[in-house]
């Protein structure tokens, strides 16, 4: 499995964990009766907090992943050749993490899927208001669609890495 695929899987897992944590937290709060129906301030605050947690968690997990991957590559290089120096190991790590035109094309095509899902979710949230659902439903649909869009973007990337991709 390539570096890009591993990175994408880490992003998908992070996104899924954040989404599950959000729905578990809000469902528990809602069931316990702490949240009053239509309390927009609570939902807006919760969503903002989870967006913050998502950003921080993504950064931390990516840093940890890169450190662990670098260590793994260094260990592999040492096992292969005991006499290899730090410069050679650094070069191996750099080569492993190189991003080229295919990665950019895959990123571009996958982001279209992500934006598509997010856009559809936004439209759906507007329809929810049109059909007299609470603004809380609208907020949740929007948050879920942006999160799911990001996760699906990751799955699309994995699909392209496995199946291949063409221009146009």
């Amino acid at each position, binding site marked *: 499995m390539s*570096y*890009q695929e591993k990175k994408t899987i880490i992003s998908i897992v992070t996104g899924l964990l954040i989404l599950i944590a959000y729905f578990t937290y809000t469902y528990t709060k809602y069931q316990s009766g702490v949240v009053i129906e239509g309390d927009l301030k609570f939902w807006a605050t919760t969503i903002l907090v989870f967006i913050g947690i998502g950003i921080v968690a993504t950064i931390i997990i990516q840093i940890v992943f890169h450190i662990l991957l670098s260590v793994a590559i260094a260990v592999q290089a040492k096992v292969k050749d005991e006499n290899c120096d730090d410069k050679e190991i650094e070069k191996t790590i750099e*080569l492993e993490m*190189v991003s080229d035109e*295919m990665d950019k094309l895959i990123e571009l095509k996958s982001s279209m899927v992500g934006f598509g899902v997010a856009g559809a979710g936004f439209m759906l949230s507007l329809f929810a208001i049109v059909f007299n659902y609470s603004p809380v439903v609208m907020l949740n649909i929007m948050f879920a669609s942006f999160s799911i869009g990001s996760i699906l973007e990751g799955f699309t990337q994995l699909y392209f890495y496995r*199946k291949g*991709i063409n*221009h146009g």
Partner: protein
Amino acid sequence: MAKKIIITNEIRKLRFFANEMTQQQLAEKVGASRQTIISIEAGKYSPSLEMAFRIAEAFNVKIGEVFDYEVKGDK
């Protein structure tokens, strides 16, 4: 409607004749990842013209010796 073109390549053969050059070595020469070279070799990705020239240069051959095309449905 334009006919579909399938781009084929001789990278595997050229690597063999270049002293069994590894995919990683070729990737280093052309400034791409090994994953990309694997995909190009398997016909899963058609590289940009720039990368195609760089691959040809890595083997010291003309681009036509590395890449060719087939028109789908053409017998």
